[in-house]
């Protein structure tokens, strides 16, 4: 490409690189001056800086005792066969590029479920291919769009068990399959394709409510029995582990039982996909954060929106990627998570753990410009 036709993006990266080249040559005092000035410039523009702004990383370096780390997420890509529709494929690739550009790299990347649109092998294939490009390790979660064609057979074949747990830098992570549905298909004589399409319709009331289900709750109780109550716990679930709006399955039917299992812990964070929107909640000891989709944003439900949610701005239908994005989660020293929404067409939005823990009294996220209808 001729040098005189540089894109805005290219220019921005060149400017950023130039700044970064000078950083190692700065003395400690100069460094703080530069960072302070940048922070002031950002404040002057009215942007809330994402929480892991370099000053915070410096604090991390000075006090290495608590384990702070970050992980990134990509969620709800809803991929189609490339022959039918490549726009969601391109969006998923953009998210992977975003994550790969994070510096420092996240410790791992959570995929929040609904990799495929209709659970087809072809869709999961392209998704797996795209996610292979991630530099950081990948942690997979399953969504209903991946599941109801073959009840998860292909997905498990590619990505392993849908329910598992792991420990990372002092935090215990639990990954659930929260989109179990009671059998509505056998009595109706539905084919696997019809079953999948029914579940894929958000407002299709033929399907039943999502649930974690008794066997998985038992597994979860057993898994968490070994974990000290002071250990921070982070749960990944595709559906929100509370009751927001039943008609769209923004809902987990046995959420109360699952929350009860988590009750003994001091600090719990639930991170969920499915809702395709900025969504924040706190119930008892649990902070809840929703993930953005790369494919399309869902409107806020007509009722049940948690009071603590600072809504994201109304998305512009004329801009296909508006309201979509990916993001990063910064784990604080206390084991609670700050959520950074990297909205592609607008300023990033941070929902700090302290905002939720104070029940909205401190660290308010930036407010919306236009209310939803």
């Amino acid at each position, binding site marked *: 490409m001729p040098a005189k036709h540089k894109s805005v993006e290219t220019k921005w990266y060149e400017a950023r690189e130039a700044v970064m080249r000078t950083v190692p040559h700065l003395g400690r005092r100069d460094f703080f001056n530069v960072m302070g000035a940048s922070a002031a410039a950002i404040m002057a523009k009215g942007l809330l800086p994402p929480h892991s702004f370099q000053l915070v990383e410096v604090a991390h370096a000075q006090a290495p005792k608590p384990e702070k780390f970050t992980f990134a997420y990509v969620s709800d890509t809803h991929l*189609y066969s490339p022959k*039918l*529709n490549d*726009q969601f494929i391109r969006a998923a690739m953009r998210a992977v590029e975003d994550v790969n550009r994070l510096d420092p790299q996240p410790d791992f990347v959570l995929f929040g479920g609904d990799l495929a*649109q209709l659970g087809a092998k072809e869709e999961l294939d392209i998704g797996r291919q795209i996610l292979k490009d991630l530099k950081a390790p990948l942690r997979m979660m399953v969504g209903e769009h991946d599941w109801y064609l073959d009840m998860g057979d292909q997905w498990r074949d590619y990505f392993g068990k849908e329910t598992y747990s792991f420990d990372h830098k002092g935090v215990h992570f639990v990954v659930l399959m929260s989109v179990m549905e009671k059998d509505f298909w056998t009595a109706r004589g539905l084919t696997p394709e019809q079953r999948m399409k029914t579940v894929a*319709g*958000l*407002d*299709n009331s033929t399907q039943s409510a999502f649930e974690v289900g008794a066997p998985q709750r038992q597994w979860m109780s057993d898994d968490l029995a070994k974990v000290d109550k002071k250990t921070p716990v982070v749960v990944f679930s595709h559906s929100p582990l509370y009751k927001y709006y039943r*008609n*769209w399955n923004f809902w987990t039917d046995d959420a109360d039982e699952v929350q009860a299992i988590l009750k003994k812990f001091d600090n719990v964070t639930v991170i969920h996909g499915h809702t395709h929107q900025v969504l924040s909640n706190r119930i008892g000891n649990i902070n809840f954060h929703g993930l953005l989709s790369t494919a*399309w*944003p*869902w*409107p806020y*439900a*007509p009722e049940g929106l948690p009071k603590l949610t600072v809504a994201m701005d109304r998305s*512009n*239908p*004329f801009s*296909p990627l508006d309201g979509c994005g990916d993001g990063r989660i910064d784990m604080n020293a206390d084991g609670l998570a700050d959520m950074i929404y990297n909205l592609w067409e607008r300023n990033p939005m941070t929902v700090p753990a302290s905002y939720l823990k104070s029940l909205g009294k401190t660290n308010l996220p930036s407010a919306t410009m*236009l209310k*939803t*209808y």
Partner: protein
Amino acid sequence: MKRDILVACTLALLFAVAGAIAQQRLETIVTLCDNETEIVIAGLKPGQALEHGAAFQVADRFMDEWKKKNPGSNWIMAMNMKPGPPIAMQVRRTAAAEPVSATKQAGVYSGFTAADEFIWKTELDKFVAEGNRIFHDAQAVGGTIGVSCDMCHPNAANTHPETYPKYQVQMQKVALLRDMINWCIQHPAKGKPLADDDPKLRAMEAYIMAQRAGKAMEPGKH
């Protein structure tokens, strides 16, 4: 169900006296709402209302006649499945159910009966249901990339039909709801826009508006 049908037909009978009327012979020919079955009621003046019990008997006769012609059929199913344009199940005269009193006005467009409302609701529901079907079907809407309307607008959320017409900044003109539906068909769904009088477009308009029943009209709202 049978009772409902009877009531509907009876009420229709009371006021929907149609067909040929032979005044000299003092009889009234009444047509059932399948537009085919006719029976003669002797001694009934045109426009005169039958007594409640007598009307029920006539309704029973109607249903018996119809069942004779359509053995093993169910009335509602048969009406719904009938090919061709929807049957005009209109009530041709809508005189008040009770005798017109001195204090009430009467006219062709007053005093709707339960039968009228039953029919109107059934017709509207069918129209809205068709819109619902198209709204949820990527192919029916004419899309080419498997994207259907409900994928961004579950239960037609965020379509806010009550805000149209309004100046749509991105189109640089005042848009009606149908313009925005067509925009969505062309862009997110990658299909061809529908003609303004296309039955699919009309049905989708009906579905979208029906989802926002009770909202205040706010044309021009942004």
